[in-house]
């Protein structure tokens, strides 16, 4: 980083000034939703553990996950799962060598957003008696 002649010269504007390219947004969101779902994985394990231990433990886990903030977190996790699901399918298709030209990448990104919205809304509607 620190070269000998860096001095106090002005820098040309770089990373922070440009609009995020769609592909960069899709890619970083894939990682963020993946890391975020680590929390979901812990919650799911806690719920099963509590269910296997005692009614009191289950009330605590299930109650927290179906409280108002709990519902918010679970819906966010559901959307994260469907985003990662749709974008992951894009990656699997790319792995075959297909769909890598600019137009296809753009179209599949939009399809991924559409799929995320549809799957999130659809799965919520099907399971929403719990919310």
């Amino acid at each position: 980083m620190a070269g000998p002649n860096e001095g106090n010269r002005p820098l040309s504007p770089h990373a922070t000034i440009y609009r995020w390219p769609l592909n960069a947004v899709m890619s970083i969101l894939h990682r963020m939703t993946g890391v975020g779902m680590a929390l979901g994985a812990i919650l799911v394990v806690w719920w099963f553990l509590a269910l296997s231990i005692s009614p009191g433990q289950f009330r605590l886990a299930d109650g927290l996950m179906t409280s108002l903030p709990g519902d918010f977190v679970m819906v966010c996790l559901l959307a994260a799962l469907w985003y990662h699901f749709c974008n992951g399918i894009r990656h699997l298709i790319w792995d075959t060598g297909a769909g890598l030209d600019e137009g296809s990448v753009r179209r599949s990104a939009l399809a991924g957003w559409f799929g995320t919205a549809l799957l999130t809304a659809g799965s919520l509607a099907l399971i929403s008696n719990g919310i």
Partner: protein
Amino acid sequence: MASSSFRTDYNRVAGLGSAREGAGHWWAQRLTAIALIPLSIAFVFLFGSTLGEGREAAIETFGHPLAALTAILFIAVGFSHLQLGLRIVIEDYVHGRKLAFTLLILNVLLCWGLAAVGVFSVARIAFGYAG
């Protein structure tokens, strides 16, 4: 192959490259991703429609062999996929050597540990030993 290559014949024929693991990680990530396509759909609907429905309903749902198997496979394959993904994230973004190694080790231990707790809990419920 150029005679100036420093790679041994064995190294070349093993096809594992300079990192000595070849495409193992890449392949495992794709394999678990493909398995998670049907598993996550099934698990979201099972878990989502059971969450907040009370302990009896939860025990009844996951007392069914197919539901228990779905949950066990989702937890096992899910944590395997999570571990592979978190490893890449740690390798890419954590630059301190000590911290990176610590996180890489914790990642494997916690993912295996939580997966074991999850699988064991579901099995305990399915076999009728919920406390």
